């Protein structure tokens, strides 16, 4: 215990490790308890077993699992909050010093301007001193910007056979890297997850009863009746949280992949929670299989990286791929970017090849590790000598080269994995079906854990995405957000609408990441988590209140019935729509601004701005449609309306808390300033300098003696970031106009009911049908993938049954024959021998039995006779010895 505390003291990163492990602990606890319960159940009756059985919950296991899981995740939240506070405190001390010295410098200058004479000289001296101090502060600022807690240990070490010493060989590591991004993710995930747990206690309460009747499953004897699965649900939730936290915690791709798969299986288990329902099990399978497709790409990327770089560790990968910031002569022109070149066949010597720098070369230079000693390093690039010797199979501390297309492929592969997880355009089909799971699960998947994982991973791996890969990401996001939004317009299932809104919001994030809005995308990820969780929980509350009625066509006018739900959901709607001063506003405008800047610099990608801009309006439209259809107007279904009621406090309290968060979680000072968001500022700390290198036009020509590099706008019209910075309000206002239009439309149609949606449907029946069929993706996949797969599968099955099984059966038949002969041999000869020995022994024993009379005196006689015999024999030998 004390060691653990000291560990916390000396390395605050362990806060987050602990926060990760706590849900796992609760998972294990609940699992063991349930296992004991099941093991003891048959043996009820004996007092001991009864006592234990009741200890583990008895006949009707209460809410204990829920309390355990909720307590665990709440504890994780507290831990990560403490860790986050300590982290930010350690980080921001640099900046406070900088700002304060800047302030002093400023007023010194003003006073210097005012003053004259000798005190002016004094002031000048002071100014110089302050400037010199500020230079060092700039260094500190840089170090603060890339500040991180890390640590790792070798989990299993792969070394060539016969290589015994533990240091060589490559190791799969488990570790943690805490920068401000992951710290924020921790707080967000644990917080939202805690609220969702709390919500679930109420929502899943009917699973508490020993017998639950599932109205959606029809058996021959009526509805299915099964035992409640309260504990199982919370067990899965805990595992889910653990996997997500572990993913956020990871400092290497391998660990990420592990938790990646864990998240996948958890989503499978939770989506298929009501696995008796055909639809639920189908949805679970669908989610799982679609994710497998993505993971195939992920594994591909991992393999490429492993073979070329020999490491999974994020920082090592980035150091290897991106050019170092400085070398012994100061800043580099290509600092932080990929350095490409061509191998020229000449100059090959002792396992090296000479690589010549060219802007579009087919190879990428791999830079040596470590890079902490920039003095001894001589950079590559136009401003340095443009040749470097690379090794064929480079060690980590040597120069190397890998083909550029492989790098792109690796990036695309990893992105494919993210596409699967985050339900991006080609693979988005599983997410709406995932609504089959319980609503809290949907909330968890959509807000905090699963879909966030993809975006988070893209953000994490940003430095290894080549330009083409980033473009693919951006377009994928653009297409996704548009497609999903259009589908969401026509959906009438309240949860489906939210699902598609999630998809489109994720598209926003992807797009932002693709166009260099690293901060914007992850910022949106965080804010979206809050209001999307809020929206889902609200929908869950509505569904709960309407007795599992999800169709909005049967709702309406529910506002007086459930005020809290309605108001909180309204807040969520406004937030996602991007009304100013709500969280969505800050993040979405940042994305739009970044897209605008990108499009300005690269006009050929105009759609990358138009799609999100238009979709902003569509989003506002369908979200307000959702809210208005649900809560306003006169009820469409009297029955549902009569039954409707407000949810218990365990469900409303999370709503209120989340509503507050989704209003003011992103506020900064001044509040109305979109650029001054506290959250964005924090995320910005974690930004890798590669982002600046790709989109920021970092100027490194400042000489070394001036200190380190910093960011300046060289040519504003070529700098997406600066353009975005200057035109933030332009993009924001455009979006706001569209948003207002969308909201007004929705109000006219669904609240005032001046316009009738049916007319629109009649006017564009094809479009409507097309949208209702979700752009016919499922049909497309079934035609292109599923059916061919089935046909091929049938062939393979035939081959399997006939040929493979035939061979196996033949072999089996032969072996049976052999063993029969062998058995004969065994029975006759081997056993014959054994029995012979046994019988002989038995017969001998039967003979010798007569000696054992059981009469003491006969034993004595034997004894004496034996003694005499031995004595005589001895005497004989002694005589022989004496005789010589």
């Amino acid at each position, binding site marked *: 215990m004390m060691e653990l505390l000291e560990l916390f003291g000396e390395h605050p990163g362990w806060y987050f490790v602990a926060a990760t492990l706590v849900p796992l602990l609760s998972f294990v606890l609940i699992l063991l308890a349930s296992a004991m319960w099941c093991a003891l159940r048959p043996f009820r009756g004996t007092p001991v077993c009864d006592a234990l059985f009741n200890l583990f919950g008895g006949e009707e296991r209460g809410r204990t699992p829920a309390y355990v899981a909720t307590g665990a995740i709440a504890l994780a939240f507290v831990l990560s909050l403490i860790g986050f506070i300590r982290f930010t405190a350690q980080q921001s001390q640099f900046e406070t010093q900088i700002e304060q010295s800047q302030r002093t410098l400023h007023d010194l200058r003003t006073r210097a301007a005012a003053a004259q004479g000798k005190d002016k000289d004094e002031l000048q001296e002071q100014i110089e001193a302050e400037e010199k101090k500020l230079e060092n502060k700039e260094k500190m600022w840089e170090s603060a910007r890339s500040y991180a807690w890390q640590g790792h240990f070798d989990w299993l070490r792969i070394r060539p056979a016969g290589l015994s010493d533990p240091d060589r060989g490559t190791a799969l590591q488990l570790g943690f890297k805490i920068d401000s991004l992951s710290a924020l993710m921790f707080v967000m995930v644990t917080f939202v997850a805690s609220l969702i747990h709390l919500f679930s206690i109420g929502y899943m309460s009917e699973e508490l009863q020993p017998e639950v009747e599932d109205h959606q499953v029809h058996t021959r004897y009526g509805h299915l009746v099964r035992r409640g699965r309260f504990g199982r649900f919370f067990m899965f939730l805990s595992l889910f949280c653990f996997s997500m936290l572990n993913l956020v915690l990871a400092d290497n791709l391998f660990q990420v992949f592990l938790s990646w798969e864990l998240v996948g299986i958890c989503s499978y288990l939770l989506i298929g929670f009501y696995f008796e329902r055909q639809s639920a099990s189908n949805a679970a399978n669908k989610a799982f299989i679609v994710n497998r497709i993505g993971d195939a790409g992920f594994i591909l990327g991992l393999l490429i990286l492993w073979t070329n770089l020999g490491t999974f560790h994020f920082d090592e990968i980035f150091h290897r791929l991106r050019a170092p910031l400085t070398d012994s002569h100061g800043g580099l022109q290509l600092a932080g970017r990929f350095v490409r070149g061509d191998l020229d066949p000449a100059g090959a010597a002792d396992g090296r090849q000479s690589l010549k720098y060219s802007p579009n070369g087919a190879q990428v230079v791999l830079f040596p590790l470590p890079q902490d000693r920039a003095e001894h390093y001589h950079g590559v690039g136009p401003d340095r000598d443009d040749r470097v010797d690379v090794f064929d199979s480079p060690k980590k501390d040597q120069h190397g080269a890998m083909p550029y297309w492989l790098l792109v492929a690796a990036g695309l592969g990893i992105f494919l994995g993210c596409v699967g997880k985050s339900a991006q355009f080609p693979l988005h089909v599983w997410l709406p079906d995932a609504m089959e799971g319980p609503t809290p699960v949907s909330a968890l998947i959509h807000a905090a854990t699963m879909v966030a994982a993809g975006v988070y991973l893209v953000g994490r791996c940003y430095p290894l995405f080549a330009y083409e890969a980033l473009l693919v990401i951006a377009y994928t996001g653009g297409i996704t957000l548009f497609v999903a939004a259009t589908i969401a317009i026509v959906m009438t299932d309240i949860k489906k609408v939210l699902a598609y809104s999630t998809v489109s919001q994720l598209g926003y994030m992807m797009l932002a990441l693709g166009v260099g809005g690293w901060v914007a995308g992850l910022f949106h990820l965080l804010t979206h988590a809050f209001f999307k969780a809020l929206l889902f929980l609200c929908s869950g509350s509505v569904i709960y209140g309407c007795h599992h009625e999800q169709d909005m066509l049967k709702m309406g006018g529910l506002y007086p019935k459930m005020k809290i739900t309605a108001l909180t959901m309204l807040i969520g709607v406004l937030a996602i729509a991007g009304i100013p001063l709500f969280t969505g506003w800050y993040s979405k405008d940042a994305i739009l601004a970044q897209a605008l800047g990108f499009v300005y610099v690269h006009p050929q990608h105009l759609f990358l701005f138009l799609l999100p801009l238009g979709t902003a309006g569509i989003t506002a439209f369908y979200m307000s449609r959702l809210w208005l259809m649900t809560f306003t107007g006169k009820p469409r279904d009297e029955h549902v309306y009569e039954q409707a009621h407000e949810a218990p406090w365990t469900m409303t309290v999370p709503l209120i808390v989340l509503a507050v968060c989704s209003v003011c979680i992103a506020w900064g000072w001044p509040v109305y300033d979109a650029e001054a968001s506290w959250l964005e500022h924090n995320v910005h700390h974690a930004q890798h300098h590669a982002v600046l290198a790709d989109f920021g036009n970092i100027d490194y020509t400042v000489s070394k003696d001036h200190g380190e590099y910093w960011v300046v706008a060289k040519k504003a019209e070529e700098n997406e970031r600066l353009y975005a910075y200057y035109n933030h309000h332009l993009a924001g206002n455009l979006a706001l106009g569209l948003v207002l239009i969308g909201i007004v439309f929705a109000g006219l149609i669904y609240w005032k009911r001046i316009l009738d949606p049916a007319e629109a449907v009649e006017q564009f029946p094809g479009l409507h049908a097309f949208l209702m069929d979700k752009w016919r993706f499922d049909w497309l996949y079934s035609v292109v993938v599923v059916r061919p797969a089935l046909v091929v599968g049938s062939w393979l099955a035939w081959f399997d049954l006939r040929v493979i099984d035939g061979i196996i059966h033949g072999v089996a038949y032969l072996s049976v024959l052999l063993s029969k002969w062998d058995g004969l041999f065994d029975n006759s000869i081997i056993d014959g021998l054994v029995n012979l020995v046994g019988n002989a022994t038995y017969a001998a024993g039967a003979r010798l039995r007569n000696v054992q009379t059981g009469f003491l*005196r006969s034993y004595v006689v034997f004894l*004496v006779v034996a003694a005499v015999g031995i004595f*005589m024999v001895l005497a004989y030998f002694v005589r022989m010895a004496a005789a010589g």
Partner: protein
Amino acid sequence: MALTDVLFYLLAAMTGICALAVVVTQNIVRAAAWLLFTLAGVSGLFFLLGADFVGATQLLVYVGGTLVLVVFGVMLTAQSPFVNMRISAAEWGIALAVGLVLYGVLAASFLISNPKGVGDAQLGREEMADSILLGQALLGQWQASPQGTMSGLPADIHLRNRLAVSYLLPFEIVSVHLLVVLIGAAYLARAKRRRLAGPASLPVDGTDVSPPVDGQEQPLGAQT
């Protein structure tokens, strides 16, 4: 033919004859009596040999203790003193034959190996270790380790650890062992309920050997 020789022959005759009587008699109590004379004769031989302490111990332990114990055993377990526990003449024959062979072997072994006997030591020469010497040997104050090679020990063993050899520890061990044995015996033979209900069959001489009630006749069981 000194007096001691005469005494030896007397005692030896008494011992041997009484031992034979122990073998041949069929009444167990008489056997005990014969055994008493045997043991007494043996102790007399010890006194004759000058081993006073051993002789006295023999008397105290054997005659006063063991033999009384044996007789108590007889009394406590007697269905009837004259119950027939004879064995067949064949077994008698076998036992006697084997015994004679054994005796022949034993006698022959040392008569043949050393016809004249070890030296010509006569009784009466005062070279027997008296009790004081014995005690000193027990305490290791007097050298008590074999000197010669007769016991197979190297000849110079007494030069090095002459005073080291002490029989105190074995003596203690034996005494503790004796205590343990007594406790164990008392536990084993503690008064238990007879398995057979009802009084035992009355012996012909009217000796009532029904199970002891207050333990007055059960020195082993009742007194510890």
